[in-house]
Every structure is written in C-alpha cells, then in structure tokens.
C-alpha cells in the first residue's frame, strides 16, 4: 500500500496560505523576498515525533528568480488553511 504523504491544495487553500504568510511577515531565508508560490502540504503530526497532530509543512517556492535556494516551507495548523469552502 502506498501512502501519499503530501496533500495537494485547492486554489482557495493556497490563497489562505499566502494570507498566513503575509500575516506572519514570512520571508525567504535565502533572499528575503516575501513573494511565494504555494505547492503541496505535508501532514507532520503522524510522521514526526516532535510534531503535534494537525501540523503541516506547506511547501513554498520563492518567486524571486535570482533566489539561490527558492524552496522553503511554512508550518501551519490545519485550521489555518485546510478547509474547503
């Protein structure tokens, strides 16, 4: 049995992630940019012993084309972004 660990996000879910990014003033650790595109989310509560249930690592890609390390991530709780309208 294959467990698909990453969750694909809908457009509204991605929009909410970007809202959280903005609220937290989250910036790229490599270039300092605050512009990101949102990818998939990894539920970490089951897999990692140091994570609480409902915690996700949401994959973000820095929008700055000159960024040296564009792939990063933001830790969010399920209730912060993962619901369908």
């Amino acid at each position, binding site marked *: 049995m*294959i467990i698909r660990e990453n969750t694909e996000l809908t457009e509204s879910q991605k929009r909410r992630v970007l809202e959280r990014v903005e609220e937290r003033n989250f910036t790229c650790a490599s270039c300092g940019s605050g512009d990101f595109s949102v*990818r*998939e989310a990894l539920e970490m509560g*089951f897999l990692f*012993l140091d994570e609480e*249930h409902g915690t996700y690592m*949401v994959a973000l890609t820095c929008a700055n084309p000159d960024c040296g390390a564009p792939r990063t991530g933001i830790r969010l709780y399920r209730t912060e972004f993962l619901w369908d309208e």
Partner: protein
Amino acid sequence: MPELDFPAWIRITHFINIIFISFLIRSGIEILGTHPKLYWNDDSKPGSEWARFTRKVMPKDKLYDTLDEEEDYSSAVAMPGHKQLGLGRHWHFVSVLGWILCGLTYVILLFATGEWHRFWPYSWAIFPQAFEDMVTYLSFDLPPTLPGEPYNALQKLTYGAVVFILAPFQILTGAAQSPAIEARFPWYVRMFGGRQWARSLHFLALLAFLVFIVIHLFMVVVHGFGKETAKMIFGAEVYPVAATIIALAALAGLVVLHWAATKYTLAYPRSTQRILGKVTNNTRRVLLHRLKSRQDYSKADLTPEHRVNGKPPTSEEYKIMAAHNFADYTLEVGGLVERPMIFTLEDLLTFPTKQTQRVLHNCVQGWTSIGEWTGVPLRQIVESVRPRPEVRFICFWTMQDSGRDEPSAPGSGQFYEVLDLHLAYHEQTILAYEMNGGPLPITHGAPLRLRLETQVGFKMAKWIERIEFLDDYSHIGEGMGGWREDNVYYDKDVEM
C-alpha cells in the same frame, strides 16, 4: 547388541549440553523479547499475532516503530536481559555453535561405538510398551527397563525423539530465520510455511525442550536422585551420596556461571561484543557471507502494510524537502574514489538501469514483511565513481540523528552503517527510491534507502544523504561498523 552403559563421552557431552542449552534458552528469550509477538503470516501484521508476551498497546494516531514494541525482560529469564538484543544474539549464536559441535560429537560417537542401539526401536511393540510405562508412572510406580538396555520403553522413545527429532528440528527452524539462507534458498523457508512459521515453530520447539527438561529432572528425582545422577557422573549406580553432592554442586556451578556471564555482559558489553563476535563473525563469514539473494515473491505475496523500523529525521531541512517531494535532494558519493559524484533524485530516477525486486524483509527483532522495491543497482553507482584499489568498505550516512529522532534506542549521533564492498556487487543490492510501485514513503526511508537482501533490516540504511568509500572504518563512531554496532552491540555482518 553391544552392552549399553554410560561411557565417559556420554557423560561429558551430557554435561556440556546442559551448559549450552541453558544459555540458548535464556538468550532465546532475550531475542523473543525484542519482538514479543508470534505470527503464522510473513506480514507480521499488527493484531494478527497468535501469541504475545507483552502488554504494550501501540498508538494508532502516531507513527510507532518496532523499537517501541520491545520488552525489557529480567536477567532472571533472559540473557543478558534489559533489552540487550545485540548481546543476547551474541550469546545465542555462540551457544548454538557450541551446542551443535557438542551434538555432532555425541552423534558421531553414538554411531562409532554402537551406543545408538539405546535409541533404536527394534519393534513396533515398543510403542504400546511405552504407553504402558506412562500408565505405570501415572500409577506412581516405576516401569522396568528393557532387557539388557539402560532405559525403559518410554525413556528410549523420548530420548531418541529429543536427540534425533527435536534437536535437529530446532537447528533447522533456526537456520530458516537467517536472512542469507532465506534470500539464497527461498524454497527452504517456504518448506516450513514461511519465515514466521519457522519462528513460531522454533518457539514451540523451545517449549518442548522446556517441558522435556522439567519432566526429565522430575523423573531423575522420582527414580532416585543419587542413583540416577551417579550414572551421569560415575557411569554406574555407585556412590549415590557422592553423586548427589557432586550433582548439586554442578547445578550450583551452572547457576554461578550464568550469573557471572550475565554480570560480565551487562558490565562490559563492548568486550562481550568483541569476544563473542569473533567466534560468530568468523563462522558467519565462512558459511553465509557469500550467499546471494535470489528472491522473487509474487505481487500477491506483498504485505499490505509493511512494518516500519526507525523514525524519520525531524530536522527542518528534511521536512521542507519532503514537502517539496524531495526536489532539492542530492546524494553525495565520495571518499576513496577516482570520480566523486553528486546525484540529484532526478539523476537516480533516470539512471539507465531501473531494477525492481519483491523480497522478504527480515528485521533483526524477528518480524518480517514482503515488499517490492525499485531503484538503482548499487554496483552501477560503484562503477560510476570508480573506487580506489584500497577500498574495502562502503559507509552509508543518513539524515537521521538517532539521539534526536529515535528515543527508543540508546545512544546519539548520525545514523550510519558500513558494508563490505563486495556486497555492493550482489544483484539484489539496490538504492531504492520506490516501494510497491509508488514513491518510497518517508516511513521507509524516502527519498533513498539501501536494500541488501541477505542481511537483516538495520543494515539497510534509510534516508541516505551520503555514501563514502573507505579502506577502514575504525575511526568512525566507536569503530564497530555502524551506529547499531556502536550503540546496541549488534554484529556488523548480519546474515543471521
């Protein structure tokens, strides 16, 4: 028929047998304690066990691994006790070698001297006679011995069965649990119904031994302790008082031997690992190290939920990389090579050769699962980087920090394992990036893990980040050839 008595070699091998078999039983209980569940299926599916010797309940909402299921048995029953699987395995394997040598000596002398007649049932009439003997015992009376023989019919059949059926059966079911033997001769383990059948039968045979020992000792007392022990000490029913004293002293000596061996093992685990390991490693290298895996299980055999051992790295870098489907992953291959290389996951996925194998996974703790693994043959990576002539070993460095990520295991530091270089050339040694037709799951070592099918699971490093070619590994960690070898005293080569 020659005159049957108790010559010195029977008495000596009987005494040596007591030592080895008592160590085998206690170390066997230690091994059982690390996965205290028995199955009739090779999936070792949680909840499908027919016997369990633990009260632990595993969580359903959090990843647990089989290290969390280990039991901590007392040294009173287990050798050495206290969750020391590595040391228990050393004692078990050294004892089994001694036991087999002692048994072979006994059987050879049995046939060379004609003493085998003591076990040979010359007539079918012995079976009803044995039943009558049992009825006599149950009537609190003693049956007579057979004419001109040292045993009554029941004793003759029972001892014969222990020597020629139970003991070989225990050796054969033990061998069926060796990953190297299973991998090279899959038909052999199937002959027992599968790996977990072999493990369960091995356990039932242990119980049979225990029942035999208890009844045997009880009967020695019933027949007359002094008289019976005299046969095994002086070779005849003479000096019963002296025999009683010597037998009790020998039993006390056996207890002291176990106590001292246990204390030493727990106080000096590294020294025990080195001393006992020398014996077992040399034997293993001669008998098992060159065996190559030839497994090809069917898709129908695949385990629906392959069991897990080891917990994923909890570093932020790993979690971000996993959320991005390991797009940033790189494998560094270096050390003593002509062409150090760095492979991306894409490089590995598009490697010219993609190999798939369906194989039985053997955990050192005793559980199994059957999985399909796809990846790059390790020999092709080796050929790409061209090791220098002095290279003898390959070290697999992982992203797991055991102190941080694996609280159920004692010790800390980056997890690594060392292999002999020649194992990389085995056909079914691969760096796997897929499992059961999909991407390798995080729980099973994503994005890259080793598959080395003739050894137990812990050697197959998961979450690999770097491969280093070496001429010597004594400078790494404690110098024992791997994180588990350093911290929990396992063997470096684990073909059994």
